[in-house]
């Protein structure tokens, strides 16, 4: 079976891709996509460490990932609602144009 560090390196690469996207793209939706990728990389780490641990029957990693998926779903819903509200107000989702607090 695949050694553990393959999964960890893969998760690190996925996290870096999400981070690069969240830092470089100017669109609010793409920043949210980057954050989702980072969350998924963290979930993959939880699952990999759970699978390779000596006490895997406790299912701790799986429980953590289930709750993390729930949180991520809530975050995506609220984040996209905020994007829609911003678009309605500023007629754009480009983050560099959304630069004043007083609407």
């Amino acid at each position, binding site marked *: 079976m695949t*050694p553990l560090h393959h999964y*960890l390196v893969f998760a690190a690469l996925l996290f870096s891709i999400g981070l690069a996207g969240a*830092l*470089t793209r100017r669109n609010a939706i793409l920043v949210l996509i980057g954050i989702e990728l980072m969350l998924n990389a963290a979930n993959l780490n939880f699952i990999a460490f759970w699978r390779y641990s000596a006490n895997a029957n406790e299912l701790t990693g799986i429980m953590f990932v289930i709750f993390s998926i729930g949180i991520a779903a*809530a975050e995506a819903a609220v984040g996209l609602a905020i994007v829609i*509200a911003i678009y309605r107000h500023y007629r754009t989702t480009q983050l560099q144009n959304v630069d004043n607090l007083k609407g």
Partner: protein
Amino acid sequence: MPTNAPMPIAFFVLAGVTLVSAICAMSLRNLVHCGLCLALTFAGLATIYLQLGAEFVGLAQILVYVGAVAILIVFTILLTRNAEVHISPVSRSWMVGLAVAIIVCASLVLPIFQSPSLHRTPIMTPDATVRLIGEKLMTQYVIPLEAIALVLTAALLGAVVIAMRDEPEEKTKQMMEPPRRGGAKPELDPPRLSIPAVETRQ
């Protein structure tokens, strides 16, 4: 557990597809393509979960991420009529962001390769049946379960309230039409590009 040789090949194929689609999701011009590549990334991650023996999490990943989050993102992209996006030229902030990401990647990957305890194979085969997960959720993890139910309810209400229109008389039209403010911002709508027009432009 030196049982089967083809497992790493399957892992490399799945990981490669997932990474390539993640890069596409973060770098393509057309936002709709980005959303669909994101769905492919989530599906690839779900297959990796399945390969790791976490069947319930893999299926939950497909249900929640591919089924809900990716579709929600595509809907938002279409609702904001923002399918075409101008890639910003290679600017200073772009370089800084990429450099930060590369530094973070290196600082994660180098310790992984240097740590000998991480080069291990699975010790045991856990039985993560749905029955066991359900029992644990109802006994040991019941308070987190209730907390996440509360969080999800609050997020549902919050999302509806935030995305709701301010003007009450236009409440019925809020889901049907693209947002169009009457007097608040008299500027014109952004040019409406259909998808084929975007594709010919590239």
